[in-house]
């Protein structure tokens, strides 16, 4: 198909409404949504899960499935209405003019087809070019997405590539036909932070190079800030605010946008002095939306009789800004510059005695090549290598690292699900590293508990909430009778601020945040003293994250719990932890107080990690560091320093020492240690990665 030249807006969505029809009712997923994407422009679509942002993307693709219908409005692509096109016309446009990139790279690639062939298919179908020509184009694009050894990549199958490489291939495939519009639906959510940073960088560069317009869907405000020119904030099926990045980030005109920014940990937030402000209440279900303003019931500026009047609230243009609109009746009256009402300030609890001590902990796995009869070659995977640290009472120790860094293995050894290969774990002067969980006494087991990552997986789906908590009480030997335990269970629900009626509910009737609260209640059933929180909020929506984090902090203050907070999100780590431990491929590369770790001198990996984390604040300037390549596999770690394959400081160390020897731990300042070969001078040269521009 010939591509027409067109210089108007690439995509014009006007008052779009999309509904899904079920047997019971019509469920409006998107209502009165308008947006315009100009050539070469990137529009970010931000909102919590269920707000309809992916539905908009599918609507543009005209791929809403059997139940979905566009019930109003129009979607114009280069001036042509997509709603009235026939299936044949749509097929021509999809993949050639509009391309889409999905969240799960592995699910977007055909596992039974070689990469080269999959890529070549696109121009062969849409432009009818010969296979040779198409393969040539594929090679070109694979080189463009900066994959090493493109020839080899073209001949491999998807499963032979890492997640980051797969996502690059998906991007390459989308770019094969030089589309005018690229739709990215959470393209980096499944990737590690440093890999994400590289992919985002790539998308940005390619967008410029090919002049492609982009519709970037994400829940991460920081990511949108880095990639987009304009932003549209969605809430419960409606766009509530849209405008340029600067306007929306700095001069927001809708209470939801404001609440969203107040609930994410930006630099400067502090758990004691300036706690996050969680958005009260829950996201309304599509068929239970309130009258009037959808955000009304959770809004600080809610005015009865006006915000809940039975009328739809129009998008209004804000004077003096560049195409800035807000869906709020009161935006002119609200004083947007009023300082945040500082919530109650809390005293920082003083760290007490050392409760937990790791001493040269090592965990190796032996992986046999042949499972059936044993024997054969055995490989040793070093999941944890000489781990040493201490954790004190009522202290939060954050463990930071990407996938494969050994943080989960460490948690397993601490919990007793695995035993240590070498070294010791000392809990209250008793060594528990060699004691599997069956041999630990009830007190020890109840003392060390865990909060899990995935809220949809943390509760047994076929047992009531109350029953699950009571079971934990039973097993920890709390309470004398069933009535006693029931009483305790209700008190635990109070502790995590859930209504007592939830005791009889099944987990599927709870939202993600509520489930996570039950998980916390269960962990504290036996008055746990050490709680390992394995990314407890990363799977939750932004507005819920703050509430769950605060809850954890509050319980910690009350119970003097030691919290081991495993995370890859440095923003939240900076917000809530007292000390930070950075891990890479089983090694602790840096350990120190939060201030020490977040300020130079850094370990080169920490430096890159800090630079990779997107921060949703326009006043923050970040040093730009993009790591090459992927995280090496723990099965086959690099020689010498684990980080040497991706380190940008490597050439500053003489004699290739990095490739030969694992560096020793060096004490930098009191309690601050770094595992690196760099000289003191080189380390002192490092700049601050995150700078907050002077106000």
């Amino acid at each position, binding site marked *: 198909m010939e591509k027409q030249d067109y210089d108007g807006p690439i995509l014009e969505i006007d008052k779009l409404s999309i*509904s899904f*029809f079920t047997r019971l*009712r*019509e469920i409006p997923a998107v209502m009165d949504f308008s947006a315009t994407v100009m050539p070469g422009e990137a529009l970010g679509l931000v909102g919590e899960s269920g707000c309809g942002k992916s539905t908009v993307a599918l609507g543009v693709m005209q791929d809403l499935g059997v139940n979905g*219908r566009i*019930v109003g409005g129009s979607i114009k692509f280069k001036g042509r209405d997509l709603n009235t096109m026939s*299936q044949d016309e749509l097929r021509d446009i999809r993949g050639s003019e509009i391309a889409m990139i999905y969240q799960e790279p592995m699910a977007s690639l055909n596992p039974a087809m070689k990469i080269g062939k999959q890529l070549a298919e696109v121009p062969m179908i849409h432009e009818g070019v010969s296979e040779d020509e198409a393969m040539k184009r594929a090679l070109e694009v694979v080189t463009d997405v900066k994959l090493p050894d493109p020839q080899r990549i073209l001949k491999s199958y998807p499963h032979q590539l890492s997640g980051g490489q797969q996502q690059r291939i998906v991007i390459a495939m989308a770019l094969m036909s030089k589309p005018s519009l690229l739709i990215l639906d959470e393209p980096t959510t499944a990737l590690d932070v440093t890999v994400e940073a590289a992919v985002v960088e790539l998308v940005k560069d390619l967008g410029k190079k090919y002049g492609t317009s982009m519709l970037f869907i994400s829940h991460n405000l920081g990511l949108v800030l880095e990639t987009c020119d304009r932003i549209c904030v969605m809430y419960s099926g409606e766009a509530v605010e849209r405008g340029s990045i600067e306007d929306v980030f700095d001069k927001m005109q809708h209470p939801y946008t404001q609440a969203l920014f107040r609930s994410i940990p930006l630099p400067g937030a502090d758990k004691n002095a300036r706690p996050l402000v969680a958005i009260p209440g829950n996201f309304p279900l599509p068929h239970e939306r309130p009258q009037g303003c959808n955000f009304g019931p959770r809004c600080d500026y809610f005015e009865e009789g006006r915000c809940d009047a039975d009328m739809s609230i129009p998008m209004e243009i804000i004077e003096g800004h560049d195409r800035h609109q807000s869906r709020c009746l009161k935006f002119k009256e609200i004083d947007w510059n009023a300082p945040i009402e500082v919530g109650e300030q809390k005293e920082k609890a003083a760290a007490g005695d050392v409760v937990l001590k790791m001493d040269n902990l090592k965990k190796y796995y032996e992986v046999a090549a042949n*499972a*059936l009869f044993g024997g054969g070659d055995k490989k040793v995977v070093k999941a944890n290598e000489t781990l040493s640290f201490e954790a004190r009472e009522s202290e939060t120790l954050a463990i930071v690292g990407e996938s494969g860094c050994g943080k989960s293995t460490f948690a397993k050894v601490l*919990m*007793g*699900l695995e035993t240590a290969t070498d070294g010791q774990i000392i809990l209250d002067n008793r060594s528990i590293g060699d004691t599997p*969980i*069956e041999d*630990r006494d*009830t007190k020890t*087991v*109840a003392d*060390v*508990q*865990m909060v*899990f*990552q*995935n809220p949809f*997986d*943390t*509760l*047994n*789906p*076929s*047992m009531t909430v109350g029953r699950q908590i009571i079971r*934990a009480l*039973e*097993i*920890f*030997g709390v309470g004398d009778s069933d009535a006693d335990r029931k009483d305790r269970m209700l008190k635990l629900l109070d502790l995590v601020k859930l209504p007592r009626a939830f005791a009889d509910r099944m987990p*599927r009737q709870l939202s993600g945040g509520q489930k996570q609260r039950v*998980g916390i209640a*269960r962990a504290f059933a*036996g008055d746990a003293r050490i709680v390992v929180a394995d990314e407890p909020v990363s799977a939750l929506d932004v507005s819920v994250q703050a509430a769950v984090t605060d809850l954890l902090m509050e319980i910690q203050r009350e119970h003097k719990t030691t919290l081991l907070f495993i995370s890859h999100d440095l923003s939240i780590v900076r917000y809530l932890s007292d000390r930070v431990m950075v891990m890479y491929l089983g090694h602790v590369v840096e350990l120190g107080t939060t201030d020490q770790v977040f300020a130079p001198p850094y370990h080169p990996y920490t430096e890159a990690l800090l630079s990779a984390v997107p921060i949703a604040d326009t006043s923050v300037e970040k040093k730009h560091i993009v790591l090459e390549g992927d995280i090496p596999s723990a099965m086959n770690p690099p020689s010498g320093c684990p980080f040497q394959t991706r380190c940008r400081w490597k050439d500053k160390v003489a004699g290739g020492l990095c490739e030969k020897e694992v560096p020793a731990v060096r004490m930098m300042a009191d309690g601050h240690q770094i595992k690196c070969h760099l000289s003191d001078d080189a380390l002192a040269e490092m700049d601050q990665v995150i700078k907050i521009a002077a106000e």
Partner: protein
Amino acid sequence: MEPLTWTGNVGDFLNPIFWIAAVILLVSVIAQIILSFFAEEMTLQANPDGTLMRRGGLFGLVERLTKYSFFAVVLIVLAYIILGVVLPYGSVGIVGNMAKQFTPVWLALIATFALSITFKRSLGLYGKLFDSTVGMIGFGLVMFWVFTAGFAGMFDMLATHDPLQQISGLKNKLPGVPLPEGVEGYPHYLLGGDNLARDVFSRMVYGSVIVIAIAPLATVFAFMVGITLGLPAGYYGGRLDTILSFLANLILAFPVILLFYLLVTPEIVATGIPTFMATVLFIFPLVFFGVLINSRYHTQPTQRTIMLAVVLGVLGLLYLSLISQEGTVFNFMPAALDLFDISSGILVVFVSVVFVNSPTVFRIVRGLALDLRTRDYVAAAQTRGESSWYVMLWEILPNARGPLIVDFCLRIGYTTILLGTLGFFGLGLPPESPDWGSTINEGRKLLLIFVHPALPPALALLSLVLGLNLLADGLREESLKD
């Protein structure tokens, strides 16, 4: 007495209507298939009131015609049945009289459906079954045979004659044949007589008792064995898994029919192998329930001990009565305590069905456990120090129930066919047994001349297995919806 026709007097006016409706249905279905190649793509239109409109035109017309003629056919079939139940004997034909015989079954079915549909919102997965048409049809078919077996087996209702009674002169007589003058009892052989002059209809009804009694019970045992071995294999993995999976594969690879022949060979029975196998296989439910209760209540020892004593006591007594048989290697129970004896033929059938079914169940459970053991709630249970069996039976098993329930329904169907196969080969059950497999086998000998003795049990088997499969489909569909 006159022989009965299929539809009797009612048929005089119903038959023509029935055939007209059937022909329209057939034609419209064919037209629909042909038209679907040419008709334009489906278009949907959303109305302001939230409803959807489907396309009209020729295609829509044919579609509607198919729908209505189908309803007409169903209605007329219903009319045959209802008129048969209502009208007196003699005015309706064979179909009507059979419907009359089944009156208690119809009443029970209506009661079941009425109650279930009324309370379907509070009945969990069972209630949701009544949201699915396929599931309801399947459930209806299954319950038809369950009730038939119940009424025939427990109250001797439904059947018109004794299944073993032979009436001279009725050998291989066609359906609707009247009894000779002077013979007491029901005046007709509704579905004719078989080659030993027994009533085919009554044999079919009594055959259901054997099938319905053995198939689900054998499946339950197969599940107990499969679950008790599959859970640890999937949960622990490693060498245990390797060994158990290998054994399962070994059994699955062995030709089933040969195995059956071996098991019923008198020489093998004399060595006591089937009895030993029964001893081993039937201990699994005891193990299962024992571990189930202990792992759950070990934190409250008194409660645990009482429950264990009661459950294991009852099950143990049943188990001992079951395996202690006269004339076998195990004959140790004093007669006063031995609750019941099972004929060795049925025991062998039972053992072999459980034996060949449990490896498949084992593999399903193992696969599910392999998947579920990586869940966070399993890790949560482990980190609070639960025993492995608690994790397997209370954390993993309840969440594997969906696929297992579906497989359970399907497996009853397989077992039913397996029983038919066994009966067909004359294995296990006594030769005069009215079970469907044996009856089909007997009917087979004269199949070219007389179809009627073999057909009813075959159709009965078909409808029961079809019902079970539809039921499984409905359950799967509904359990996925949540």
